[in-house]
């Protein structure tokens, strides 16, 4: 059952072959058993989860169930959930109990899904390995000496180890797709503006976007049907007609034009990841798709542009953490300014402080034009690269990451090496496009490899269909990490 799809779980619940309380208890048992090693969850509240499950059972019995009613889901600890501790992976919010629900959380609650708890993450979503979490790093279920990726590493590990059938994530520079790739699961970052950011603790507001993380594209499509949609409480939420994200799942691949950016297959890409991606492309060709070479010439610049824009936005967003209204306050201080400075020095970790300082600098008088404005101009060039590429193809494919999951400590002492590992994901956020990662191979070291799919604006439904057709003829998404097989 731990490897069942959301559709299969929904059928078991509808046929009363299992109750939501039984299903939720089974996952809570797995969390109790595996989380001490994996550290994927930072908050679990069995009483609250089981109360939600009992309510879901009552709803199913009354005949008022929605598609996913009674199915458990884990939430990245960046989403405020009323009454739940919401830490964002930071000492600053280590004791913060959210007073309201994020839009995404309330959407899943209204759908009758059961929250299994809050998943670990890089502090304020700043990191690619989960090593910046105040609560300790998440371990990769495939190999506990490897990072799970970040920043949504807890959600990724939870789904990979089958501690949850699905999870929420957020992606500012690759934080859904990269951990999905490194843990062998499926994740989707939607077009910017498709999912409301209300109640999602802000990192870089022009890039942050929430999305689903699950075992398969089909499951992600069902989750998107719940989480996407207009919300007036997010000023950048897009007013668009309601979509059924499952509508293109059955679309055939014949005639599909797959664009392969030459910049994604060059220097820096490991041979093994390249082979994994090439094998996936061969499957698509067998299904009738054709591949064409395209170019995204400004890819290399996406990293410097991101490390100006994201810290700049973070430095303003994180100014709210001052020890006055919520969160941590330093115990000792001389005056108001000292209270701010001590609170922020003690409440934030090193990576967060580094980015706040970079952001403060690039926004300061005399440097704004040279850094911030120049980065925004190159951001447009990067977005135009994609527009030109999509004139020649329907979808872009390539690796999600240059290599498989790296070992703990490999990059944590060298911020630049860590930043460069996001070379294939960041440009998608800068352009605001939808992107996915789908498991497509397992390397000789036993660690998964991810295939990235990038679509044009609002093509989520098509992307999910393209991923689903691949998953119909392959079983990489069904593979589980060693030792997770013990049935429940």
């Amino acid at each position, binding site marked *: 059952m731990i490897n069942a799809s959301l559709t299969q779980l929904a059928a078991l619940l509808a046929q009363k072959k299992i109750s939501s309380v039984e299903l939720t208890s089974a996952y809570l048992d797995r969390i109790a058993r595996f989380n001490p090693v994996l550290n994927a969850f930072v908050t679990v509240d069995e009483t609250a989860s089981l109360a939600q499950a009992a309510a879901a059972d009552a709803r199913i019995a009354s005949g008022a169930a929605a598609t996913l009613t009674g199915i458990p889901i884990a939430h990245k600890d960046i989403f405020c959930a009323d009454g739940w501790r919401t830490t964002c992976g930071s000492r600053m919010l280590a004791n*913060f*109990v959210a*007073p309201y629900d994020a839009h995404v959380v309330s959407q899943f609650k209204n759908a009758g899904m059961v929250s299994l708890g809050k998943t670990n993450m890089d502090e304020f979503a700043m990191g690619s390995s989960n090593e910046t979490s105040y609560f300790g790093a998440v371990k990769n279920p495939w190999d506990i000496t490897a990072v799970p990726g970040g920043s949504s590493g807890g959600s990724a590990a939870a789904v990979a180890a089958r501690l949850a059938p699905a999870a929420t994530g957020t992606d500012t520079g690759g934080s859904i797709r990269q951990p999905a790739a490194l843990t062998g699961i499926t994740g989707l970052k939607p077009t*910017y*503006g498709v999912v409301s950011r209300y109640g999602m603790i802000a990192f870089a507001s*022009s*890039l942050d976007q929430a999305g689903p993380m699950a075992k398969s594209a089909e499951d992600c499509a069902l989750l998107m049907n719940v989480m996407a949609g207009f919300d*007036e409480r997010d*000023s*950048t939420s*897009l007013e668009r007609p309601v979509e059924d994200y499952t509508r293109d799942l059955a679309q055939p691949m014949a005639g599909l034009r797959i664009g392969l950016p030459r910049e994604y297959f060059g220097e820096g890409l490991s041979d093994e990841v390249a082979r994994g991606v090439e094998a996936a492309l061969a499957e698509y060709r067998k299904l009738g798709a054709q591949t064409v070479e395209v170019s995204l010439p400004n890819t*290399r*610049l996406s990293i*410097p*542009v991101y*490390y*100006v824009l994201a810290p700049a936005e973070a*430095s303003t967003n994180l*100014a709210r953490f*001052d*020890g*006055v*209204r*919520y969160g941590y*306050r330093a115990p000792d*201080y*001389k*005056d*108001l*300014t*000292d*209270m*701010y*400075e*001590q609170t*922020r*020095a003690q409440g934030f970790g090193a990576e967060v*402080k*580094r980015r*706040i*300082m*970079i952001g*403060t*600098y690039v926004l*300061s008088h005399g440097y704004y034009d*040279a*850094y911030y404005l*120049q980065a*925004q*101009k*190159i*951001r*447009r*060039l990067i*977005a135009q690269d994609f527009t030109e590429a999509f004139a020649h193809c329907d979808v872009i494919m390539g690796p999600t990451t240059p290599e498989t999951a790296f070992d703990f400590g490999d990059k944590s002492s060298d*911020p*630049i090496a860590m*930043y460069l590992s996001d070379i294939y994901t960041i440009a998608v956020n800068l*352009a*605001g496009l939808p992107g996915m990662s789908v498991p497509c191979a397992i390397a000789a070291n036993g660690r998964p490899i991810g295939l990235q799919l990038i679509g044009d604006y609002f093509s989520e439904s098509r992307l999910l269909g393209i991923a689903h057709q691949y998953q119909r003829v392959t079983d990489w998404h069904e593979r589980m990490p060693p030792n997770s097989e013990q049935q429940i």
Partner: protein
Amino acid sequence: MSLTLLDVKRVARLAHIAVSEDEAAIYQQQINGVFDLIAQMQAVDTTGVVPMAHAQDLNQRLRDDIVTEPDLHEKFQSIAPQVAEGLYLVPQVIE
């Protein structure tokens, strides 16, 4: 370009983050490493390119100027470090 130790301390003060001498030296080295990376941008000719602030070209939505939220100040203040009589307490700033 590179930041001096003084620059780092000035930025930390602007950002309201206390840093010790030792920390400032570490941040200086790390932040300069990031600026070496950022420097790649300077070689790009962006004459005539319109800055892209956002992924979607949107106009700010407006709504009617009416009260839409209930008063939840007790709930919101229950999570504050220090409150009294509905007020947030901070160190005295006016003698």
